[in-house]
């Protein structure tokens, strides 16, 4: 700081001062009769001037040029260091860019800063009436609504398909300013029957034909005009890559997510207070039994951290955090490799460095120069890693995921990711470069050269490397075991002999729910008559593809005891339990609708266990919410999983499909088949198509439809496993390097030993013992760290699988030992094949 200040302050005066100072010196010398030393006056001035220039920057440039030259001279060293760094930085950047895209990407709207997401105390979505009330209240400049998860049926002339659609208010495109690639978005002046296509739908189903604009397509059996096509990289407000295939104006009464434009100058706090006012009015005019709306108001931004706040993604963020931590360890392993290489290289450069020191380079300058080399390596490594990461992340994002909604991640070069890669490069420079540079600089000043000490440093580094890979591998092993357990867990229903059909009915034709009931009955008869289908049932939800989690306060009518229960809900037809292979433990399943006189439910074993209180549940009745008619429990069935196979069993309540008011024209069917269900898919489709040709059909085997349930464990195993493998590879290279270097350095010693009669096996034992010591220390240290570091993983693992699972840890130690053995073979063989005579004659 002081230097900079002085330099800036004095630079202008420098020339004049220097002249005057030197003139004074000469005059004095002349006056005293001393000979003026014959110096090169201009060189002197140069030297003085140099001091006042920004030498740091100038030196840096010189060092960079020199380092580049040096690296080019040793291509093997450079290539192996670059490969390590590119892999390490690439792995980190890949995960980071996916995480950023998934959680922090900016939605495609105009002026994202002034857009907010509003909750009016009615959950994540709000009724249209309330939305209109909010708009009329004038709290915001503008208010729009969007329902991003609904379906429309599209008939392309030959077949009806179900499209994943978003429905939005008429002012949606105006308020949000969503960019449109082709054509335009709708305005309030447009008729209701218009649509905007996603880029993917346009490419896949309309062959990317620009003439699609203005064309009429049939949606839900009505004519819609195509107005526009969204850009390829459209990012929805909901984020997480969720990408509806088509946008249409709101056409039913489903609740909407509310987005609003802040008025100029309006802050989030202002808006929140004003929305609270609206909610209070609502509470006063339309009070509800379960809590006041005003207590649950939130107004958050739609990008960045604000969005993270209002989406429940704690565990996703934690998962990414853990992945990044592991990837950081992998980078550390890579850096240690580079540090090892630099140390080895330093000993071959001793001569060059000695010359430099004798020419007057200070230790600081030397350090700076050596670090510049690592900086250059790290920067090049980061560049390569960035490119690698972009390709890998794109590849990963393009993998189809077994989820029921279309997910598109648009991985693009991103400034945040670039900054992250650059920061990693700096860290890598210091981690990989500082120790070797410091050691080299010190060695060159303290003359007694210390190969031994340098070896000690390298051995320590390798121990750290083995420890780090132990931790990374342990996480990978835990997740592999997790996946193995997940696939072994029974979801509680038959997934091998069953199939599922998801039927979307044209809403206009099925506005009357009795028509839906009629369709269900007819479809069940048609399905049961398909040869090979032994039973068929209808259900609102098929477990492990969708779940409905509710919370309710129930009251036992006999004792008057009230209790609150969080349960999974479903509505099913009588044959459901038989078809799915869910055992009825007590009582009975539902009977044909005509015979169920009163309201009945079936509960699961966990419900009985938690809320039965020793009561004989079958026959007991309870009151549910505001419904005056009691519900009678007629049966208890076995538990099933509902969202993931790893979840804890939860209470479940089933209602007969016939007793549940249906507001959606959607029905699902499950079929049990005597022959492999994959062979039944076509006949099932035909049977359903005959009953309602205009329905949208998704027919698949149960086994393939529940893929989503295994997704967390599969993703975990794949990602952690890949990191573990990468870490293992890198540390194997490091271990090999250090062993090979040790053997090379002890060639003479081994030669002497063999000359005085040592057998090759004894030499091999020395080399092996060295490797075993390193491995033992590394595994011990890694085990100690892993015992603590893997503890937070418990939240992602199956119940019953401990994050310190002995089997996982033991297998990691075994794998490391195996890799170490492979790494030691080469050096050991080299050591035993030393020719004592040649070796002794050498100097």
């Amino acid at each position: 700081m002081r230097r900079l200040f002085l330099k800036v302050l004095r630079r202008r005066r420098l020339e004049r001062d220097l002249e005057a100072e030197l003139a004074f010196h000469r005059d004095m010398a002349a006056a005293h009769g001393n000979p003026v030393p014959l110096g090169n006056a201009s060189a002197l001035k140069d030297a003085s001037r140099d001091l006042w220039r920004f030498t740091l920057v100038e030196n840096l440039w010189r060092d960079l040029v020199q380092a580049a030259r040096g690296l080019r001279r040793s291509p093997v060293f450079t290539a192996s260091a670059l490969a390590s760094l590119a892999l390490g930085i690439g792995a980190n950047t890949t995960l980071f860019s996916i995480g950023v895209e998934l959680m922090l990407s900016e939605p495609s709207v105009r002026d994202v800063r002034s857009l907010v997401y509003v909750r009016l105390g009615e959950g994540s979505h709000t009724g249209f009436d309330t939305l209109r009330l909010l708009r009329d209240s004038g709290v915001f400049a503008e208010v729009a609504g969007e329902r991003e998860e609904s379906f429309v049926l599209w008939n392309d002339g030959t077949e009806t398909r179900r499209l994943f659609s978003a429905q939005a208010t008429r002012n949606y495109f105006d308020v949000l300013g969503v960019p449109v690639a082709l054509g335009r978005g709708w305005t309030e002046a447009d008729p209701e029957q218009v649509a905007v296509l996603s880029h993917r739908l346009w490419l896949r189903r309309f062959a990317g034909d620009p003439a699609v604009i203005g064309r009429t397509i049939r949606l839900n059996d009505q004519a819609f005009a195509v107005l526009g096509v969204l850009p390829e990289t459209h990012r929805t407000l909901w984020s997480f890559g969720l990408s509806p295939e088509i946008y249409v104006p709101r056409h039913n009464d489903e609740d909407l997510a509310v987005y609003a434009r802040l008025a100029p100058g309006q802050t989030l706090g202002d808006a929140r207070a004003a929305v609270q006012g609206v909610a209070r009015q609502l509470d006063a005019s339309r009070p509800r039994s379960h809590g006041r709306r005003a207590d649950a108001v939130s107004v958050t931004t739609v990008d960045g951290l604000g969005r993270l706040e209002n989406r429940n993604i704690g565990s996703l963020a934690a998962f990414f955090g853990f992945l990044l931590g592991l990837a950081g360890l992998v980078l550390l392993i890579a850096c240690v490799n580079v540090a090892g290489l630099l140390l080895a290289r330093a000993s071959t450069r001793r001569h060059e460095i000695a010359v430099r020191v004798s020419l007057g380079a200070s230790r600081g300058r030397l350090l700076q120069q050596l670090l510049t080399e690592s900086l250059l390596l790290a920067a090049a490594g980061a560049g390569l890693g960035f490119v690698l990461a972009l390709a890998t992340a794109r590849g990963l994002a393009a993998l189809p995921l077994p989820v029921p909604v279309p997910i598109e991640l648009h991985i693009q070069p991103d400034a945040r990711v670039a900054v992250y890669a650059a920061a990693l490069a700096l860290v890598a420079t210091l981690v990989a470069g500082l120790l070797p540079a410091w050691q080299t600089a010190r060695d060159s000043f303290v003359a007694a050269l210390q190969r031994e000490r340098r070896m000690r440093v390298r051995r320590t580094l390798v121990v750290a490397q083995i420890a780090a890979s132990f931790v990374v591998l342990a996480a990978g092993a835990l997740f592999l075991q997790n996946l193995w357990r997940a696939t072994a867990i029974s979801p509680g229903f038959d997934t091998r002999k069953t199939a599922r059909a998801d039927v979307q009915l044209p809403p206009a034709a099925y506005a009357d729910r009795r028509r839906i009931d009629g369709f269900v009955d007819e479809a069940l008869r048609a399905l049961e008559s398909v040869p090979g289908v032994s039973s068929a049932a209808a259900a609102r939800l098929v477990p492990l593809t969708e779940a409905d989690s509710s919370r309710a306060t129930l009251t036992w009518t006999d004792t008057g005891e009230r209790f609150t229960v969080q349960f999974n809900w479903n509505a099913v037809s009588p044959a459901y339990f038989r078809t799915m292979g869910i055992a009825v433990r007590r009582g009975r399943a539902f009977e044909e609708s005509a015979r169920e006189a009163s309201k009945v439910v079936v509960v699961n074993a966990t419900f009985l266990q938690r809320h039965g209180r020793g009561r004989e549940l079958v026959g007991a009745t309870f009151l549910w919410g505001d419904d005056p008619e009691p519900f009678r429990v007629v049966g208890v069935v076995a538990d099933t999983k509902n969202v993931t196979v790893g979840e804890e069993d939860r209470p479940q309540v089933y209602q007969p499909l016939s007793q549940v008011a249906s507001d959606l024209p959607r029905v699902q069917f499950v079929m049990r088949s005597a022959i492999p269900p994959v062979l039944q898919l076509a006949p099932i489709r035909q049977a359903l198509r005959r009953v309602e040709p205009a329905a949208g059909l998704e027919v698949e085997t149960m086994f393939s439809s529940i893929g989503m349930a295994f997704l967390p464990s599969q993703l975990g195993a794949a990602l952690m496993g890949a990191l573990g493998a990468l870490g293992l590879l890198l540390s194997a290279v490091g271990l090999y390097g250090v062993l090979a270097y040790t053997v090379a350095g002890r060639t003479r010693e081994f030669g002497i030993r063999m000359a005085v009669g040592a057998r090759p096996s004894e030499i091999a034992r020395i080399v092996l013992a060295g490797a075993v010591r390193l491995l033992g220390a590394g595994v011990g240290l890694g085990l100690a760290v892993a015992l603590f570091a893997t503890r937070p993983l418990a939240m992602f693992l199956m119940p019953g699988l401990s994050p310190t699972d002995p089997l996982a840890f033991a297998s990691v130690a075994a794998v490391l030992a195996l890799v170490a053995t492979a790494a030691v073979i080469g050096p050991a063989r080299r050591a035993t094949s030393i020719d004592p005579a040649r070796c002794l004659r050498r100097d």
Partner: protein
Amino acid sequence: MGNPAPALLQGTLDLLVLHTLRRGPQHGYAIAQTIHLLSDAVLTVEEGSLYPALHRLELGGAIEASWGVSENNRRAKYYAITRRGRRLIDEQQETWSRLSSAVDRVLAR
């Protein structure tokens, strides 16, 4: 000239300059003269190394410079040692004694 003056080792000139300035602020020529005289005329500090060293020390904060008037009424740049400079003397003196005794030891064998 008979025997050439021995070249100063890197770093030792700094130490000599600082040591000289401990007696009070001096201009460059006086510093060179003092070193010359104190070394019994063995060491001759050339201006080519003196002034860069002075500037380096000034930048490092070991000495401070100001323009003053010399004994013969001319404008001259005077250098004065700072507290940091005094600390530096102690450090460099120790380095120097280690170095010189090491050289002695080597030569004694």
